[in-house]
């Protein structure tokens, strides 16, 4: 095996060895060599459903081999740099430079420096304009593509939206135009969902805000017929345990709840369901081909799948074969008590009814109490509660409300529970995200956030409730980039040159270096954290995500009025996603 001597010097060498069950045969004859790059380490990358779908979809093409490369851990990075070994793919150990296309999946704002690190280790320039013929085409996609501007200039093109159909069109075009990058990019820009950053000119006003864009809009791409779209019948079994190490079926895309802070809920619309017949067949095939002991029924809000009860009945034969069925992302209202045994996670998000109405969570105090009772009587042993601090209009009364909800859980666990379940509270910091009704909001400042976290920490310590919270500085950086523009690319480069990588890992995150990078580039982070007026041109306004700006503004105004908006299943609210004619609810 190549690099055996290196593997013996790093922790978790199985991250790099390949040979996983159900992985592809890189020796297959092919015309396009594609490397799926994920800028996070193996355990995170191997949990990603998008990767599982696209990897197998590309390898099922007769003309393509798709290999993988993930962010190496610092120990391997150091060896590669010291010994001048180019970053290699997991399957064939081929240098990344030798591939036709490198496809990065970007799922989190704190992995932007990892992209640069992988490019550097591959021996490739950071900026697309510095890469020429003879070097791989470097493309991107994934959830962060709803506002790709901070990293846009590193890529030749970016797929905005769901990759399945768009990627197939791109590969077809690539074969036609292989060898002529300029012409390929010009033609690719005409494909729905394809954004070619070099073709977009951004104009700025003297106050630093954006005046406008010189290019037609980029339309988000999405799979029209989800039920008949590609879904793998096998999945790679990771060599070592991944964060989510189980089979997955995807029930539906989009979400009808309309929580006003949730980017995924809006950005993945329109709502499209897979049929239960197809799902149960996929589940059976996946368990047969992987041997997994658990299958997850994935979606943004699994309890909202209209035929969930019937689907669970159809999956009963799997349970008889010692397969656990997990339902992640259950809402408090109407959750399935029989799945409560073991660990359960609820996300009330806010501590008071008033604030839950502001964020349109659409759950009541009664719903929360009923869900807790059902969970504990069904033998839930570990209850996790997720909240956010810093939500628009929040007061200390709402923070006190978080404590009250957790204390209610504690009381009920004693009176209703069969044993003594553990209760864990986790709070994240609210981040205003593009394509949400709160996209114009400011982020809470450090002082206010730390005070709220300290207050909760003190109450929970006294009451022996486990409490964890997100680091403010990491959240702040995420907020800057999630609403950032392309001027931030130089900050990413500057921070990387100072040694910032693996920023989503607390042991590596260094806020000071980031502050220095902003300062050196003459960029004020506060500019990106401020509240923005409704009439300001936003960096992502050139993207049509099939959500009307007017609708988002209306929702924001309703939030401030404390008015909730009904679930789309009760009637169309006119968000704009039905314009494509694909919303299952319209």
């Amino acid at each position, binding site marked *: *095996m190549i690099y*055996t001597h290196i*593997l*013996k010097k790093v922790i*978790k*060498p*199985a991250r790099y*060895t*390949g*040979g*996983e*069950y159900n992985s592809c045969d890189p020796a297959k004859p092919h015309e396009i060599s594609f490397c799926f790059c994920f800028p996070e380490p193996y355990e995170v990358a191997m949990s990603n459903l998008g990767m599982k779908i696209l990897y197998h979809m590309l390898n099922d093409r007769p003309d393509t081999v798709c290999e993988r490369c993930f962010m190496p851990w610092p120990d391997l990075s150091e060896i590669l740099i010291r010994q001048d070994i180019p970053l290699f793919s997991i399957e064939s150990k081929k240098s990344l430079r030798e591939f036709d296309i490198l496809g990065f999946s970007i799922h989190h704002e704190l992995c932007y420096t990892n992209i640069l690190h992988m490019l550097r280790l591959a021996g490739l320039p950071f900026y697309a304009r510095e890469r020429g013929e003879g070097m791989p085409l470097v493309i991107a996609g994934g959830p962060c593509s709803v506002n790709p501007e901070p990293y846009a200039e590193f890529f030749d093109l970016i797929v905005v939206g769901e990759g399945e159909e768009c990627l197939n069109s791109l590969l077809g075009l690539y074969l036609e135009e292989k060898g002529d990058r300029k012409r390929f990019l010009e033609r690719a820009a005409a494909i729905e969902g394809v954004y070619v950053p070099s073709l977009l000119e951004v104009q700025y006003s003297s106050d630093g805000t954006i005046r406008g864009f010189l290019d037609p809009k980029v339309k988000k791409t999405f799979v029209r017929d989800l039920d008949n779209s590609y879904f793998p019948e096998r999945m790679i*079994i990771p*060599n*070592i*345990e991944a964060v989510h190490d189980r089979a997955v079926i995807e029930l539906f895309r989009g979400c009808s709840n309309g929580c006003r802070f949730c980017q995924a809920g809006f950005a993945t619309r329109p709502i499209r369901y897979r049929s239960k017949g197809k799902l149960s067949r996929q589940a059976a095939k996946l*368990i*047969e*081909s*992987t*041997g*997994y*002991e658990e299958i997850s029924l994935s979606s943004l809000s699994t309890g909202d799948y209209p035929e969930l009860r019937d689907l669970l009945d159809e999956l009963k034969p799997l349970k008889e*074969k*010692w397969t656990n069925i997990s339902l992640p992302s259950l809402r408090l209202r109407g959750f399935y008590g029989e799945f409560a*045994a*073991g660990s359960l996670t609820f996300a009330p998000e806010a501590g008071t009814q008033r604030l839950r109405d502001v964020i349109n969570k659409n759950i009541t105090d009664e719903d929360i109490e009923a869900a807790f009772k059902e969970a504990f009587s069904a033998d839930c042993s570990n209850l996790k509660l997720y909240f956010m601090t810093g939500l628009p209009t929040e007061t200390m009364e709402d923070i006190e409300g978080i404590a009250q909800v957790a204390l209610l859980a504690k009381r009920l666990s004693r009176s209703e529970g069969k044993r003594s379940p553990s209760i864990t509270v986790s709070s994240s910091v609210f981040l205003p995200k593009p394509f949400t009704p709160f996209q114009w909001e400011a982020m809470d400042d450090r002082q206010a956030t730390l005070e709220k976290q300290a207050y909760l920490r003190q109450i929970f310590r006294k009451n022996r409730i486990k409490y964890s919270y997100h680091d403010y500085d990491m959240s702040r950086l995420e907020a800057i980039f999630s609403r950032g523009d392309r001027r931030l690319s130089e900050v990413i480069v500057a921070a990387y040159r100072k040694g910032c990588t693996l920023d989503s890992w607390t042991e590596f995150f260094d806020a000071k270096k980031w502050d220095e990078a902003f300062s050196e580039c003459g960029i004020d982070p506060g500019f990106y954290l401020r509240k923005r007026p409704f009439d300001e041109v936003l960096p992502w306004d050139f993207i049509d995500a099939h959500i009307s700006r007017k609708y988002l503004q209306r929702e924001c105004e309703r939030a401030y009025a404390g008015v909730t908006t009904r679930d789309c299943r009760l009637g169309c609210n006119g968000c704009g996603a039905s314009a494509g004619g694909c919303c299952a609810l319209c």
Partner: protein
Amino acid sequence: MLTFRFQKVGAAAFIPHVNAMRHITRAIRRAGIEAAYSQGFNPHMNVYLSPPMPLGFESLCEYCTVDTKTGAEEFMRLYNAHCLKGMECLEAAEVVANPNIAAAAAAALYEIEDPALIGRLDELQRGRFTVEEKDGGAEKDITEGVLAIERTPRGISALLKYGNMGNLRIDRFLEALARRIPDFKPQRVVKARLYCCDGSGEIIPAQQYISKILR
């Protein structure tokens, strides 16, 4: 119940022990082999492995016992058609009870291929083996863990203590060899045979140990 010997070679040699167990249970499930599960809150397949060995070293003699009624031949055929490459079953035997190899393992025979070792057997058999303590401090004598050293066509074989009754890790032994033989660069190291301690205290090959409880 069935006990089988499997290899852990190539990329599979880098799979940690706990993950190797998962790979085996998943291969058994993929193969459609019926196996018994534990009772209780979180049932898991009843499989029992021989003791772990350091990561990155190949082995031809890992053992696993699984609670199944499937016959040895059928098991081998089905399992090998569905297992991870590098973790193939090499032989299987039906047993009446779990031989608990994890507890009985007493020694392991490693084959170490390196031309630098050829012709130095006498020297190796005479001297002592030492390593540096992990904290970089004093020298530690590990000779007690070396039960025998023999010549092989491509180097040496070393029988080292292995398991609960005393354990000398192969990587530590290689460190000791490197201290004594400056040009030592092993081309291949493989755990070739496992030995168990039977009730009388005698150390016997694992196959022989298992054969005492054949169904």
